[in-house]
Structure formats: structure tokens, C-alpha cells
């Protein structure tokens, strides 16, 4: 595995399966009386959040703490960033404090890549969502849930990938970092991905993505093993992408009658936060086929796996620090 996790394309099939298998083992820690492992003792993980987030930040924090890492939470609100500090100066500050890993969420696409390749910091960088670019750990936890539900068996399908499974991603593909990461990761894992959206909500160049594109939700529903509904990101919308919300909901929303046309075993996924009544009705959101809550609980295990695999072993940047950190006890 690479030293950073910036994009889902950084991962090979074997990397991705290793992360999912590791997450499957780490998921059991949650069932134990002491939900903690000593593995990252003495490592510092900084959560650098320039954008609001509930699930991702809490889940990275829980993951790092369960591995005994020290966690420093940094949110742009109430920090020197609101006084005009640049990403570079913030990064240099973190480096001076000895951050071993920086988990970054940023409103600009490419900020994590800049952080990882600029030489400002020596630790590893984990992308927790950058602008409309990528959100690789979300894709990993979606794949984790998909594998548990669709492959299943002992150990949640350990060792297996998602070959032959058909996943449909519906909604605001244009603004969705979740969609982009999922298309790449799920394809790497062997799944066949179809994205469905109104033409205005598809990004330029989507034809080069390794997936099918459709404008008609009903046509693909019947042959999907999983349908992933995306939120319409009103905060990123600066133009009229569709006539009315009602029309969007009718053509691209998932309601009970549509769900009934899906195959018996198919699941409904949602990365959250949901807009009930918009892309998903309450009936579907509350049905047992909707895995939104399951996805969140899998998120902690997947992020533990990512932090363990990036930080747990020896890595090249560590050799320079071995002396000050000392040999392991």
C-alpha cells in the first residue's frame, strides 16, 4: 500500500481486499468489553477539518482512539484559519507538533494531494473528502457493507472481492466525491457500476469513467444488486440543474414502489446525510433494506484498518524518526 490514501485509485484490488479483511477483524473489537487495541500507542493523528462533517470526523476520531493513537481535532472554525492562515502554515504547525497522520477534509479538490506531495509534512495523509473530488474511506466502507450483504458467509466474505455484483449510483454525480471514489474502488473490486443522473448532474468526462451511464433509473433498477442514493448537494449548486425538487424526486428519487421493483436480495445504500422526501422517501430510508446506519458502524472499522495499515508497521518516513521514538518496548 502507498504511504498516503488520497484517491480510491491509489488502491489495487489486493490493497482493497486487505483493508476490508482487516476491517472485518477489527469490527470484532467493538463487541469486546475493552474496545481498544494498543497498536498505535504513541502515534499522533490529526483530524484537520476545513469543512463541516459529523459522521466522518467522529468515525475517524473513534477509529484512532480505539487504536490508542493520540487524536488532535482541528476544525477551521475557531482556529487561525479564520484569521487567514494558509494551508501551508497550518501544515507546518502540525508537522512541528509531530503529527504521524493527518486526516484532512477540505472544501477544495486536491488539497489532500497538495498536503501529501508538497513536503510540508512527513506523516501520512488520509483524504477524508476534498471538494467534489474523492472520499476514499467512504467508498471503502460502502464496499465493506456491500461485501457483507452481497457476499456474506463466514467473516463477512473475507478474502473475496465484489466481482460480478451490479451497483447503481443515483443522483448528484457532478458534485459527489462519494460517487467518484465508489466508481473507481468498486470497479477495482470487480463490480459493474452504473451511474444514473439527469444529464445536468453528470460531470464532464464521465464517459471516461470505468462505468455505464444512464438517465433512466427504472431501466436499471431491476438488474441492480445494490442501489446507492446520493444527496442532492444544494450547498454546491450555483445554477438550476433541474426544474423543481418535485420533478427530481419523481424521476430520480427512490420510493416504495420503485424499491419493490428491485431484486429480492438488493440493498439500498445512502452515504448520508439524507434528504428524506428528496432522493429517498422515509418509507425506503426506514426499511430493513436500507443500510445507511450499518454503513456508519462499518465506517469505524474501515478507518481503523486504514490507520493501522498506514501507521501500524514500518514505513520509509519512519526510519528517520526511529531514533527519537526509540525502539518498541
Amino acid at each position, binding site marked *: 500500500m502507498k504511504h498516503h490514501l488520497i484517491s480510491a485509485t491509489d488502491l489495487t484490488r489486493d490493497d482493497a481486499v486487505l483493508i476490508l479483511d482487516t476491517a472485518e477483524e477489527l469490527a470484532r473489537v467493538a463487541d469486546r468489553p475493552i474496545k481498544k*487495541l*494498543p497498536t498505535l500507542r504513541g502515534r499522533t493523528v490529526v483530524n484537520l477539518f476545513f469543512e463541516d462533517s459529523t459522521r466522518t470526523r467522529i468515525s475517524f476520531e473513534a477509529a484512532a482512539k480505539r487504536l490508542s493513537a493520540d487524536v488532535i481535532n482541528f476544525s477551521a472554525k475557531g482556529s487561525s484559519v479564520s484569521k487567514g492562515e494558509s494551508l501551508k502554515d497550518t501544515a507546518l504547525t502540525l508537522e512541528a507538533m509531530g503529527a504521524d497522520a493527518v486526516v484532512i477534509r477540505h472544501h477544495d479538490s486536491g488539497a489532500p494531494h497538495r498536503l501529501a506531495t508538497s513536503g510540508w509534512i512527513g506523516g501520512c495523509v488520509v483524504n477524508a473528502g476534498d471538494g467534489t473530488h474523492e472520499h476514499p474511506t467512504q467508498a471503502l466502507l460502502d464496499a465493506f457493507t456491500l461485501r457483507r450483504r452481497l457476499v456474506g458467509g463466514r467473516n463477512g466474505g473475507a478474502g473475496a472481492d465484489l466481482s460480478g455484483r451490479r451497483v447503481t449510483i443515483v443522483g448528484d454525480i457532478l458534485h459527489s466525491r462519494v460517487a467518484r471514489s465508489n466508481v473507481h474502488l468498486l470497479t477495482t473490486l470487480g463490480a459493474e457500476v452504473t451511474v444514473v443522473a439527469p444529464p445536468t448532474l453528470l460531470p464532464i468526462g464521465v464517459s471516461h469513467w470505468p462505468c455505464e451511464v444512464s438517465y433512466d433509473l427504472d431501466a436499471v433498477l431491476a438488474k441492480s444488486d445494490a442501489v446507492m442514493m446520493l444527496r442532492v448537494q444544494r450547498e454546491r449548486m450555483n445554477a438550476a440543474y433541474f426544474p423543481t425538487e418535485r420533478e427530481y424526486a419523481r424521476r430520480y428519487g427512490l420510493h416504495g414502489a420503485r424499491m419493490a421493483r428491485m431484486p429480492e436480495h438488493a440493498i439500498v445504500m445512502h452515504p448520508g446525510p439524507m434528504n428524506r422526501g428528496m432522493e429517498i422517501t422515509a418509507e425506503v430510508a426506514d426499511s430493513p433494506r436500507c443500510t445507511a446506519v450499518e454503513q456508519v458502524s462499518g465506517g469505524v472499522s474501515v478507518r481503523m484498518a486504514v490507520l493501522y495499515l498506514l501507521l*501500524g508497521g514500518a514505513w520509509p518516513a519512519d526510519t528517520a524518526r*526511529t531514533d527519537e521514538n526509540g525502539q518498541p518496548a
Partner: protein
Amino acid sequence: MDARESPARSVLEAPDIARALTRIAHEIVERAKGADDVVLLGIPTRGVFLGRRLAAKLRDITGHPVPVGSLDITMYRDDLRLRPARALAPTDIPGDGIDGRLVVLVDDVLFSGRTIRAALDALGDIGRPRAVQLAVLVDRGHRELPIRADYVGKNIPTSLRETVKVLLTEEDGRDGVLLGVREHTPAGER
């Protein structure tokens, strides 16, 4: 274990391993006065198979099933930072847990004792056994920690340049213990 080894010499054959495990099973029953509260936990990879074999023998001797599971110690190792992150093996604690029970850890080779130290730490996070004992197929010496085995299949005095390789049918297709000589000794590794 290691890439380059000179031709290895067999020190235990399949029947020897079977006899050693039978003896260990009897010793466990004797010391635990019936093995009623015994839980066997094998340390992956080969300790798990040895644990299952011991459980089968204990069932034959005592007439009741003995809980058996596995305990992965990767996350508790003290040499994690010396190598790239490793894949995890399954940890599988029997349904009734280990609280108040006699846990017998099972491993193939006892060497530095560091694996067992890690296993004791891992156990502490899972529950509070009444007592913990250790059963190993081979004790090759060279302890680096104050740890000893309660049940030993065979003591094999070795030099540090030698390697001990346990083969089990479940993993390697046949039973046996091989003693080889390592041709290179990478610093800081085992």
C-alpha cells in the same frame, strides 16, 4: 518462515506429534483435575490447528466438549514498527468467554517468548481468566522474557542460526518438525 534455508533435518514425525499431543492432553486433564473449565486458545496460524487437535483429544479423554478458539496477537506485537503492517488473522473467542476459566494458550514453537507476552496482553483486553497456561509443541530455548511453557511436546535445543519449522496437515499437507540452518541472519529480525 525464511526465504533461504539449507536442507532441513526432520526432528519430529507425524506419529511423534500425535503422541506428544496425547500426552499434553492427559497432562492438562491431570493438572486441571478434569478440564471442566478449560478453554483452549490457539495462536495463529499453526497454534490454532494444534488447539483444535488438543480439543479433540481432551473430548475423547473427558467425554465432554472443550471450547476451543483462536487468539490473534498481531495488534499486540512489540515489533510491529520493524516491518510493514501485517495482515490480521481471525480472533475467535468461544461463546462463553474466558472470564473465570482456565485458558490454555497453544502455539507451535516457543522461542523468545515475545509472542506469548503479546498473547497475555491480548487476553487481558478480552476478559479475566482464572489462570493462564501455555502448551507448545516445540520449545527451542533462547527466551528473551521470563516466560515458560506448562506443557511441552518436545524440547529441542537449538542455536540461534537454526530455524524450527512446524508442518501441519491442515496448513502444509503433512505433519512434521524440521530443523534447518539459516544462511543469512538479517539484523533485528528473527
